C-alpha cells in the first residue's frame, strides 16, 4: 500500500514532538502556578503551600501526605472544573465564553516552530503496511520556512482574547483592564519586533534551526548583543502581562482586571494562557539569544551539536532547551516578586519614549555593522555597550515630566487647610444613577 504524500518521517516526528511538548507544557504550566507561590512565599519569608499531598484523604495513602504541597496543582485543577462556572446577567454571553478560548489557543500554538531537539536519524520502516522513507529530519513541531514570522504572528493573536474578555464582561474594572492590556501589549510589540529584527540581521535567515546553528558556530547572541537581549526580555514580560507590567490586573485598582467576572475553568484558562505565553516567550528568548539546544557557549561538545542525530542526543537537547526555558521562567518569577508594579503612565512612557527609540537606534547600529561585515563578537559587543552607556548618560539630561507628582497630604480631605471646612460624611448610600443626584451634597452636609 502506498503511503499518502503527507505521511512522511518528518510528519511523524513532528506529530510526536507536538504531543510530547504539549504535555510537558501543560503539566509544567500547572506546576508553574505552584512554583510561583513557592517562590513568592520564600521571598516574603513564608512557607507557601505545603499540606496538599496525593493522599486524597485516604488512610491507605498516608505516606503520600504532605510532599511539599506538590498535590496543590492537582487539587487546583480539580477545583477549577468542579466549581460553579458562573455567567453574570449583563455579559455578552457568546463573547464571554469565546474569550478564554481565544486566549488559550494562541498560547498553546506558538511553540511548535521552536527547534526543540535539532535533528534525528529515522530508519526506513513500515506501519500498517505503508512504507515510510527514513532520513534525517527536524525534531520540531512544524518544519515551516517562515518560523520566526509564524511565532510573532501567533504571539500577537493573544491580545484579542484579552480585549474581548474585558469587553464582554460589561464591567468597568474588566473594561479598563482589557483596554489597558491591549494598549500595553501593542505598545511593547513594536520593540519586540525590532529586537527580533536585530537578531535576523545578524543571522540572515528566519528559519529557527539555522538561527541555532549560527549561534553554535559563532557563539550565543546574548554575548554579542546584551542590550538587545535585555530589551527583548523586558518586552516579553510586558507581552505576557507579567509584573512589573501587570497593570491589566492590578489588584488595588482593578480587582482582577479583564478576568474579574470569570470563574471556574474559564478563569483558569486565562491563568494558564499567561504562563503559556511566558513559556513560549522564554523558549523564543532561548532560541534567539541563548543558543537553543546547545549546552555551553563557545564549546563544540559532541552531544548537543547539530550533527548528533541519535535519539539519545535528541533527548539531551530537549532537556537542555527546557532547562533554559525553566531558568528564564524562574528569572521572571524573581522579577515579579522583587520589583514593584509600575504605574500605567510609566509603562506607556517607557514603551514610547524610551524603549522604542532605543530599539530604533539598535536596529540602525546593527544594520550598519552588518553592512561593514563587522558581525564578530567584539565589534557588536562594543557597539551595544556604548549605546547602553550613551542612553544611561542621556537619561538624567532629559526633561523631567511634570505629571503625577506626589502630592503632599496637607490640604486633602482628611487634613484640611487652616480655616477650611470639609466633610468626610458618606455620600448617598445606594448610588444607582450615573450622574450626581441633585441636592445630595446639601442634604448630607
Amino acid at each position, binding site marked *: 500500500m502506498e503511503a499518502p504524500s503527507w505521511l512522511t518521517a518528518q510528519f511523524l516526528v513532528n506529530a510526536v514532538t507536538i504531543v510530547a511538548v504539549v504535555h510537558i507544557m501543560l503539566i509544567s504550566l500547572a506546576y508553574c502556578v505552584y512554583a510561583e507561590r513557592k517562590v513568592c512565599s520564600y521571598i516574603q519569608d513564608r512557607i507557601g503551600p505545603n499540606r496538599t499531598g496525593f493522599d486524597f484523604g485516604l488512610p491507605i495513602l498516608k505516606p503520600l501526605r504532605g510532599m511539599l504541597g506538590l498535590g496543590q496543582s492537582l487539587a487546583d485543577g480539580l477545583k477549577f472544573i468542579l*466549581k460553579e462556572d458562573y455567567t453574570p446577567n449583563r455579559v455578552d454571553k457568546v463573547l464571554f465564553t469565546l474569550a478564554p478560548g481565544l486566549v488559550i489557543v494562541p498560547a498553546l500554538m506558538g511553540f511548535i516552530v521552536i527547534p526543540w531537539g535539532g535533528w534525528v536519524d529515522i530508519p526506513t520502516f513500515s506501519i500498517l503496511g505503508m512504507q515510510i522513507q527514513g532520513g534525517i529530519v527536524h525534531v520540531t513541531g512544524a518544519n515551516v520556512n517562515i518560523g520566526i514570522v509564524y511565532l510573532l504572528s501567533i504571539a500577537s493573536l493573544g491580545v484579542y482574547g484579552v480585549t474581548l474578555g474585558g469587553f464582554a464582561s460589561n464591567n468597568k474594572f474588566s473594561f479598563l483592564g482589557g483596554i489597558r492590556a491591549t*494598549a500595553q501589549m501593542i505598545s511593547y510589540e513594536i520593540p519586540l519586533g525590532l529586537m527580533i529584527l536585530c537578531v535576523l540581521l545578524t543571522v540572515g535567515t528566519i528559519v529557527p534551526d539555522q538561527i541555532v546553528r549560527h549561534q553554535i558556530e559563532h557563539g550565543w547572541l546574548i554575548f554579542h548583543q546584551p542590550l538587545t537581549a535585555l530589551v527583548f526580555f523586558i518586552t516579553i514580560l510586558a507581552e505576557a502581562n507579567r509584573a512589573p507590567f501587570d497593570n491589566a490586573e492590578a489588584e488595588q485598582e482593578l480587582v482582577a482586571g479583564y478576568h474579574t467576572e470569570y470563574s471556574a475553568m474559564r478563569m483558569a484558562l486565562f491563568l494558564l494562557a499567561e504562563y503559556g505565553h511566558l513559556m513560549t516567550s522564554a523558549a523564543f528568548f532561548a532560541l534567539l539569544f541563548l543558543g537553543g539546544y546547545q549546552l555551553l557557549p563557545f564549546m563544540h561538545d559532541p552531544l548537543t551539536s547539530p550533527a548528533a542525530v541519535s535519539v539519545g542526543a535528541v533527548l539531551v537537547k530537549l532537556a537542555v532547551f527546557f532547562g533554559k526555558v525553566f531558568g528564564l521562567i524562574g528569572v521572571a518569577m524573581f522579577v515579579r516578586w522583587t520589583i514593584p508594579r509600575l504605574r500605567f503612565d510609566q509603562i506607556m512612557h517607557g514603551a514610547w519614549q524610551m524603549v522604542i527609540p532605543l530599539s530604533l537606534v539598535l536596529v540602525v547600529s546593527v544594520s550598519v555593522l552588518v553592512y561593514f561585515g563587522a558581525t564578530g563578537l567584539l565589534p557588536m559587543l562594543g557597539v551595544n555597550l556604548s549605546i547602553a552607556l550613551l542612553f544611561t548618560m542621556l537619561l538624567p539630561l532629559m526633561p523631567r515630566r511634570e505629571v503625577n507628582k506626589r502630592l503632599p497630604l496637607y490640604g486633602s480631605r482628611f487634613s484640611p487647610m487652616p480655616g477650611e471646612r470639609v466633610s468626610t460624611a458618606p455620600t448617598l448610600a445606594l448610588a444607582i444613577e450615573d450622574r450626581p443626584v441633585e441636592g445630595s451634597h446639601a442634604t448630607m452636609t
Partner: protein
Amino acid sequence: MRCGASPNRRQASRAVPILTAMMLATTDLASYMPLTLIAMMAIGFAVVNIVASLIIGPKRPGARKGQSYESGMNPIGTARKRFNVRFYLIAMVFLVFDVEIIFLYPWASTFPNIAPHPNQEGLVWLIRILFFLLTTVVAYLYGYRKGVFRFD
C-alpha cells in the same frame, strides 16, 4: 563517555550533506500539515475545558449574584461608554510601526547575504532602508509633538 561519542562522530560525517538537502526541502506545503494537528489539539483543549466546566459545575443563579462585581457597590450604569481617546491614538501609531516592521522582515533576512562592504548593492539597500526608517521617525516625531505619547 568517549565510547558514547564515537557513533555520533560517525553519523556526523554522514549527516552533513543530507542536512543541506533537507533544508531546501522545507518550502513545500506539506510542511504546514502539523499546524492543523496543533490547531485541533489547542481548540480541542479549550472547548473540552470550557464545556466540561459548564456541565459539571453546579448552577445556582440569583439576582444579586448576577450583578457585575464592582467591589461590592451596586453597579452604576453600564460599562459600554466612552473611553479615553489616547488608547485609540496609540492603536493608530501602532499600525504605522507594525506595518513598517513587517516590511523590514524580508529585508533583514536577505540583507546580510548581499551586504559585505565593497558591494555597491548592499550600500544601496542600506540607504533605502535607512530612508524608510527615517519616514517612520518623522511620523514618530509628529506624534510626539502632538502629545500622543503623553499619558498623564
